[in-house]
Every structure is written in C-alpha cells, then in structure tokens.
C-alpha cells in the first residue's frame, strides 16, 4: 500500500476527518492576505475564523521578533516559507532508509522503535503497517461514550464553531507575541479537546497516533477546555526524534480550566536537533499557556525537552480562580550545539492561589541553555504561594546554563520561595559509581536520571520510562 493511500485510510478512520482534502495543492512561499484566505477556504472555515486570522495577521505585521532571549540564530525570512502544503508526494521523500541520516537511525535503534515505524518517522516513502488505525477507532468510541470531544482543530472549527469561538484566543490572544500572532494567522493543524462538566476523561489523550500518520504541522494550534469538575491528561509528542523539512515551528497551546477542573499536560519533545554542527535542526518557538479560570482549578505542565536546534518556550499559568493551582515540572536537556531558552510564568491573580515550579536543566557538549521564570503576584492575590526550584547540571566545560528568575510581588501576604543550584556533574559522584564497576556513560545517565527524578515522577508511567531512555540517548557521548 502506498503511503498516500495509507494516510487516506488513516484519515478515513477518523470519521469526522482531520483534514478532508488532501489534494496536492501547495501555495507558493510568501505570506499576505490571500495566503490566509486560501488556508481558510481550504479548511472550509466560517467567515469569523477568516476575520480572526486576518486580524492576527495585521497585528503581526506591526510586531518585531523578540530579541530578549538568550538565543542566537540567523534572521528568519518569513516570505520564504510556504504556509500551506499538501502532504509530500512519495517521490519527494527519501526513497529508502539509506538516504536518512545514519545517526537518526542509530537513535531509533537505541530507543527500541519498531522497524516499520522508523521509516515512517524518518519520512521515508514506504509501505507501512499501522496498528494505530484500529487503536484509534476504539479510542474514538470510548471517548464519544464519555462525551469527550477530541479532534483536529480544523474539524472543531467546522463541527463545534460555538465552542471554539468561545475559547480560542482567550488565553493566548492573537497579539500576545510575535510567534503567537503568526500562528493565529496561519495555523493549519492541531488538536481540540473539550471535556464536559463532571467528566473524568477515561483515558490519557495523546497526539501520538496522529503524529505517526502524518508529520505535525508547522503551525500547530491546540485548545484544551475542561469544564467544571472535569479532568483530563493530555500527552503531546513522541520520544522518537522527528524530522521535518520545516525548520520553523511556532505552535500555540491554550488550556482552559473551569471550576474544580484539572488539566495535566505532558510533553516529550524530541525534534531533530540538527547534525553535530547544528545544521538542519528545528527552531521550536512555542507559546503555551493555561488559564485557571475557575475556583480551585488546577493546571499542571510537565515537559521533557531534548530536541530541536533552538527551543523558545515558557508554558505558563494564569491563576485567576480562587485557590487555583499551577504547576510546572520541566527537564530540558541540551547537547551538541543546541540552544534552549525555556521556563515558565506563574501569574497569581486570585486569592490563595498556589504554584510550584521545578525546573531541571542539563547542558552537555557545546550547548547553551537558559531558565527564565516569572512569578507575579497581583494585588488581589491574598495569601498566594509559590515555590520555585531550578537546578542546572553541567556536563563538561564547554556548555552553559543561565538562570533568570523574575519576581513581581504585589501583595504583602504572599509567600514566594526560590531555590536555585548550578552544579557540574560531580567528579566524585562519577568516581564513586565507576569504582563500583559501572562504566562512565552509564554512571552519567544514572546521575542525571537521579537529578531529574522529581520531574519524571510527574509524567504518566509509560512516558516516564521512555523519557529515561531518551535522556540516555541524548547524552550519549557527552563525556570522555
């Protein structure tokens, strides 16, 4: 079966269809109003959606790319990007695994990814057996029974326009930042989740199946809404390194938690970091924000970031409801020539709101990373509490880690604690392990995994195991 047919089959199984049209139309590179109109029309969007996109586009035109981050990259030519393209034709893809970066294949091997999936992940035009088709179907039925809506954002705009319109852009407004504005104008892919009042989503939601079927979009837009007393755990990403021809990725994720709702959002991100010199890696500029809109609501971000050439990402929580809780657990690993500027923002608005930040940064090789965190306590946030712990671990002496904590305290009854450490992977710890017969690389991964324990235990079980394996692969060759 040719892979295009396979993709069609996969799509057909999602009855309401992710993207119904897969005609091989591609707009030429460049961005103007007609590009946006084309996208909107392709997606069969209602009028308001097009207007919303255009509004974002006009905002974007007035904005400039952020320059405050601790990152270095050449200016991006936004007119050189194609903003809508149909799936790649088989003849344009690598024809066999022989044409794929051998390092990537080696990694698949180490992560234990089945053979047939390796080809699909590497973007090779081959026949593939897809277990996920049947899995996805059972999955859909179960969710439907519970009343949970889980579909592509494009489908949601068509099928549930009121819901989307009510929440889209209410957490991350179109003009929030440069990349969010661009995303709002041109997003073509992403997920929508709605969990109705009182429903605990019967399974962990994952985009994994979809990612297997087709490459993730360049400008993904995800919206998760948890109604009163509802709960959901959403898993994003995949431990397998993913290749993509699109160098720039600018996703937006919005989470809305109403009264007593709980959203747990876990990410394992492993985009292709580029070759040893950082060539060909992905730029990952993401805006992720959760809105604890209702009293006693809770949003928890957990992320393991190992991929991308450049990561720019600050999952944040707006704690508006009384006694609402925001959490951020993060492990960021950089090696080679990777750069990451990541962190979180906890904005305490409601009374007795609480937030916890645990950020672990591991830098190896010649990589560079920064933690940037803002804790803001508003004037009405009586009794608000924050606990921040950020630890950096350096492996070798050519890498760097920087911490930029910002605190704005507008209420004297608030309690804000901050702990930060930077340590080199201790020679005495390595010696201790090696003097017991454990080789250096295993010792490093053992020590690093121990360092990340607090965060890994927040991940869903399956993900945690994969994350450990991933960490080991990422840090391979970082010592000695």
């Amino acid at each position, binding site marked *: 079966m040719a892979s295009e047919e396979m993709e069609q089959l996969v799509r057909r199984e999602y009855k309401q269809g992710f993207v119904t049209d897969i005609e091989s139309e591609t707009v030429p590179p460049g961005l103007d109003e007609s590009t946006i109109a084309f996208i909107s029309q392709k997606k069969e969007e209602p009028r308001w959606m097009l207007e919303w996109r255009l509004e974002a586009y006009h905002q974007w035109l007035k904005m400039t790319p952020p320059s405050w981050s601790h990152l270095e990259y050449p200016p991006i030519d936004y007119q050189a990007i194609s903003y809508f393209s149909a799936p790649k034709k088989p003849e344009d893809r690598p024809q066999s695994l022989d044409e794929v970066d051998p390092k990537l294949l080696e990694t698949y091997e180490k992560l234990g990814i089945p053979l047939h999936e390796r080809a699909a992940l590497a973007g090779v035009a081959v026949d593939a057996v897809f277990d996920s088709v049947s899995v996805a179907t059972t999955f859909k039925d179960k969710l439907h029974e519970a009343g949970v809506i889980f579909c592509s954002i494009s489908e949601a705009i068509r099928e549930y326009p009121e819901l989307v319109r009510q929440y889209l852009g209410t957490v991350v407004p179109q003009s929030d930042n440069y990349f969010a504005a661009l995303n709002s104008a041109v997003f073509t892919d992403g997920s929508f989740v709605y969990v109705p009042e009182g429903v605990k989503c019967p399974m962990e939601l994952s985009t994994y199946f979809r990612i297997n079927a087709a490459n993730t979009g360049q400008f993904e837009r995800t919206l998760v809404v948890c109604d009163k007393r509802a709960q959901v755990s959403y898993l994003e990403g995949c431990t397998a390194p993913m290749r993509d021809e699109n160098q720039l990725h600018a996703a937006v994720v919005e989470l809305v938690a109403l009264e007593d709702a709980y959203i747990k959002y876990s990410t394992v991100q492993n985009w292709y970091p580029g070759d040893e010199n950082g060539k060909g890696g992905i730029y990952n500029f993401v805006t992720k924000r959760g809105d604890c809109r209702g009293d006693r609501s809770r949003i928890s971000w957990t992320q393991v970031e190992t991929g991308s050439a450049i990561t720019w990402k600050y999952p944040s929580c707006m704690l508006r409801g009384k006694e609402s809780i925001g959490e951020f657990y993060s492990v960021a690993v950089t090696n080679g020539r990777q750069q990451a500027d990541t962190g979180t923002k906890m904005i305490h608005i409601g009374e007795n709101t609480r937030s916890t930040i645990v950020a672990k940064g591991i830098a190896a090789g010649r990589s560079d990373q920064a933690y940037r965190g803002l804790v803001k306590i508003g004037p009405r946030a009586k009794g608000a509490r924050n606990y921040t712990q950020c630890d950096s671990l350096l492996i070798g002496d050519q890498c760097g880690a920087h911490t930029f904590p910002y605190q704005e305290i507008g209420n004297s009854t608030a309690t804000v604690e901050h702990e930060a450490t930077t340590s080199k992977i201790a020679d005495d710890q390595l010696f201790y392990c090696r003097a*017991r017969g454990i080789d250096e690389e295993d010792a490093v991964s053992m020590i690093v995994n121990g360092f990340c324990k607090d965060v890994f235990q927040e991940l869903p079980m399956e993900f945690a195991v994969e994350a450990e394996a991933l960490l080991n692969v990422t840090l391979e060759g970082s010592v000695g």
Partner: protein
Amino acid sequence: MLEVKDLHVTVEDKVILKGLNLTINAGEVHAIMGPNGAGKSTLSAVIAGKDGYEVTQGTILFEGQDVLEMEIEERARAGLLLGFQYPIEIPGVKNIYLLKAALNAQRAARGEGEIPAPEFMKLVREKSTDMKMDPSFLQRAVNEGFSGGEKKRNEILQMLILQPKLAMLDEIDSGLDIDAMKVVADGVNSLRNADRAILLVTHYQRLLNHIVPDHVHVLVDGRIVKSGGKDLALELEERGYDWVLEESVA
C-alpha cells in the same frame, strides 16, 4: 595478588608517596597505619584510580595485570573495590538501583548475564539484614541524608554484594560509635576467606581489635617504614608513631 613496587605519587605538585612497596596475598588482611598526612588514603585512591593522582614512578600489579593501565571501572570489575572514607551522595538514585547496576556491570565483565530480580532481592535482603540496615535504606537515594555510621554500613553492604577479590577500606572506622563499629567489623570479617584479601587503612588501633590483621604496616612520610604482625598495632597504640620514625631514620 597485589604487588606495589617503588610507588611514587604526586598530588598537585606535592610528592605524597615516595617509593612505597607492598605485597598482599590472597587470604591475608593487611592494615596500613600511620600519622595524618602520611599518604595512607592516597595509596588506596591510587589503586582505585582516582583522578588527580599522578604516578611518577613505580608499578601496581593486580593478579599480574598492570593496574595503572586500567580504567577505574575495569579495576572494580577485576575485583579491586574501594570502600570510601567519605561515601558520596547521589540524589535521586536509589541505593538498590546502584547496587544492581554495579553487580550487573561486574557480572557482564565476567561474561555472566544479569542477575534475576528475585535472586537479587533475596541477596540484598539477606546482606542488609547482616548489616542491620532497615530495608527502607535500599529505597533511599544513595547516601543522601545517611548518618556517618549508616554510610559506612552501606559501603560494607556493597562489599558483601559485590564480593571483591581485594577489598580496600579507607578509614572505615571513622565516625563510628562502638555498636556501629561492631556491625561494620562483623561485616568485614564475614568477607574473610582464603581467596580474598583485605586492605585496611586506619589511623587508630581500635578497629584492629575487631578485625584482626595478619600484617600491619606503618606508613610515614610516603614510605612503609615498618611492618609486623598484629602486635605492632598495639605497640603503636601505646607508643605513638614517633619512635617508628626515629628508628627508620637511624
């Protein structure tokens, strides 16, 4: 089993060992004693392969192999195991995990497969009972928040599980109260057999009442200046180290 010949060691341009000779045979227990700063800990650290110690002259052979050519982990796998004076804390890594990783690394080096989980659990439970360690220790992070005595018992527990050919114990008695000393000594004594040798580095004679050595060596100023039987330790306890030094100079 172990043959140290004319060993000269420099640490940060300071000469610590100045021609040390020592031969240890299987089945023997040796104690190295000496005043502070004599180079006692340097000897075991160099044998184990710690960074920062430069061997400028001399050889160390272990079962005929040139130890100085081996990586740290190769030495451990060959059966040379160092018990630390100050065991290192490794946050987030469970004690039992370290034990298992170490044991399996050593088994792999011998061409054996990984130890089956039930067998490992049985072994660990048995040995930790011997060391009077509560099973909860196994689930705690390596040495993190352990008291001095707990850390030392943990070192011996590792020895009991890894079963080295030559166990080197660096000041294993420091910071121990009398009860803990007894437990540690019992653990070490249980390691004694005809195929295994033990090298004790200690400042005080006290430990040697519990672990009775076959040979006692006095290390002063980078050299072994006097060797004898277990009675030598008692004599040192009584008379201090100065007379040995005077005797060796004379």
